[in-house]
């Protein structure tokens, strides 16, 4: 099946400037619903679901291919190529930020700029690097997810949305819509990934958006990403949590508008 159908690709808006919105772990393109109506007024939007998430064709989930973020990055490249729509400005949330970095390092010709929303190249502390989690904490997080996925989703949702109950409920629902075996596998791939070596290879205009009190990707991590990507812009948002496009959509859109089109 063609990638457009397989990854439930949808186009909104019009215009020469293309924003490709890429959701994070456990989510789907629905997560952009509060910002896309504004953004589509001025930009052509490409929305899609990562394989195994949302309304993608999960039958195509191949544990070999999706055993690393590179498999997801290859899908991003395939979507842009198949649509014939590049170069795009890629907006990647959370794990998708690093998926975008990986894709842009592999095929810079398809990307105009990157907007990394609450990114983390590595969640685990390692030597001098502070990822925000000890290995025990990550292992505990994954184990709790593997043993009681629904319970884990309920517990983590308010943390991600800065204690916004309405958006928390929505994100928990989204988590529960993923096939549990895929959710568990994707979680392990996400939380054990280490993309730090990719960051210095990126040579595109990049904007990094950092939330306050983000326990998944704390400010120290955002600052690390900023220092590793030459010429990147680092913007600290007023919003709490890990999902500013859900909890502070107005601020999110304003910041994007203020920085687009991104220049080096």
């Amino acid at each position: 099946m063609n990638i457009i159908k397989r990854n439930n690709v949808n186009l909104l808006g019009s215009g020469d400037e293309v924003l490709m919105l890429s959701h994070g772990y456990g989510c789907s393109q629905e997560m952009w619903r509060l910002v896309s109506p504004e953004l589509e007024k001025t930009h052509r939007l490409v929305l899609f679901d990562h394989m195994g998430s949302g309304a993608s064709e999960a039958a195509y989930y191949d544990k070999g291919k999706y055993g690393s973020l590179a498999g997801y990055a290859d899908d991003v490249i395939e979507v842009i190529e198949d649509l014939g729509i590049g170069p795009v400005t890629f907006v990647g949330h959370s794990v998708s930020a690093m998926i975008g970095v990986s894709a842009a390092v592999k095929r810079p010709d398809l990307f105009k700029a990157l907007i990394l929303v609450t990114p983390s190249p590595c969640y685990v502390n390692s030597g001098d690097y502070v990822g925000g989690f000890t290995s025990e904490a990550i292992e505990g997080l994954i184990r709790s997810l593997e043993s009681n996925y629904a319970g884990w989703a309920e517990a983590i949702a308010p943390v991600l949305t800065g204690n916004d109950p309405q958006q928390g409920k929505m994100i928990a629902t989204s988590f529960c819509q993923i096939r549990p075996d895929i959710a568990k596998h994707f979680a392990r791939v996400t939380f054990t990934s280490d993309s730090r070596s990719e960051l210095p290879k990126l040579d595109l205009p990049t904007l990094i958006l950092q939330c306050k009190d983000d326990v998944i990707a704390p400010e120290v991590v955002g600052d690390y990403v900023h220092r590793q990507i030459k010429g990147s812009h680092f913007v600290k948002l007023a919003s709490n949590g890990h999902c500013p496009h859900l909890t502070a959509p107005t601020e999110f859109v304003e910041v994007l508008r203020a920085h687009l089109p991104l220049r080096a």
Partner: protein
Amino acid sequence: MMHLKRFIEDRALTFELERSFLVRSCNANFERYLTPGKSFHDLLAYENSTGMVDGLRAALGANLEWSGEVAFPTKLGILYAEISVYPTDSGYAGIGIDVTEQALVRKKLLQQLEFRDQLIKQSPVGVFLADKLGSCFSVNDCWKEMTGLKLYEAIGDGWLNAVHPEDRESVTQDWNSFKLGELSFEREYRYQRSSQSTTYVFAKAVMMNISGVPQIFRLENDLTPLILRDQQMEHQRTQIEASARLAALGVMASGISHEINNPLTIIDGMAEVLGYELVAFPNARPKLEGIKRNVGRISSIIRSMKTLARDGSCDELESHDLRRICDEVLLIAEPKFCEHGVALTFHCNLALVPIRCRVSEIEQVLLNLLNNALDAVQESEEKWVKLEIEVHPKKFLLKVSDSGPGIPEAIRVSIFNPFFTTKAPGKGSGLGLSISKTLISANGAELYLGPSGLRTTFILDFPQTEESP
């Protein structure tokens, strides 16, 4: 617990690794596959993506468990296993299960799908895929080439924008009927790649069930080469017919000129004689001069008809006076213009305008342009057609302008195309300008449309010859 123990004994693959990834120990199930001396990392180097292996090393390096599906080359063939590897005090330990059978089935299915996708991609026929609601989600390279669209422009109903404006409404209706299951979709229509390029297609759509999901496959065959060939043949046929008519006219003109020139010579001679005999009657002189002038005019018309009807396509280009050619054509055209009340003027500052050409072809083109101009001014309040010769560096421009409504911007690019006409059916073949352009090119000159504006001006652009002033 007995069952679990038996399951582990029979099916589970267990192993312990050194930090260096050398296999320290494993159970009998795993041992069956192992080649002595191969490290676990060597095994992983086969078929598994670099990203996945890096992920595994990163996880273990961070003291985290890693799980996933891996492929190992073994002495018994490829082993696909779902494994979990976790750090221990002295190295790593792992447990897994053989999933080769399922993995091979899945890979075979994916290979078949990949094969099908490649067939569609490489197909020399346009392939258009839509969901059951008729919303396009994929097209192949051939389709993109035929329509000039990229996939993002074709997606959903975007493809309809590429359908020729004259076909769009009927194609939309037929497509909607097909989606509703009312009618089949099997028809010809056109795509407009740009204002100058049209693709003719024959399309047939079928509803198919792919893995339980209804989808529409539409195959489109590019008929453009066939249509263009037919048009070319029709063009040639019309040219042959026109040539035949001109040849017949030529034969007739020769006969007429022979039959008329003799009595004309006699009339001219007698008028001359009468001039001498009626020298005593001065009032008769202007009348006799009128007779001689009109005899000369009849001779010129007959000469022009003979030249015009002659097929000169095989003649060499020769030096001629463009001003004289215009005079000859005006002689033939003037009566018709007078009859319709259209002022026909000719302006040229030069006494001689030398060009190299085949006279009969230039006359045909000029007469055609004048006839078109005459038609164009019929509805205008002021009716005039103007011929003028301008001298430019290295070229002479013969301009034919009229007071008609002008040519709309949208059709300016198509006006020299074969069969293009704005005249009512039966009034024009649409070949005049196309043939004229071809004839003028064959004479080493150019025919084109002047700048857009209120009036229409056709320009014949002749290079100056060495004899030119």
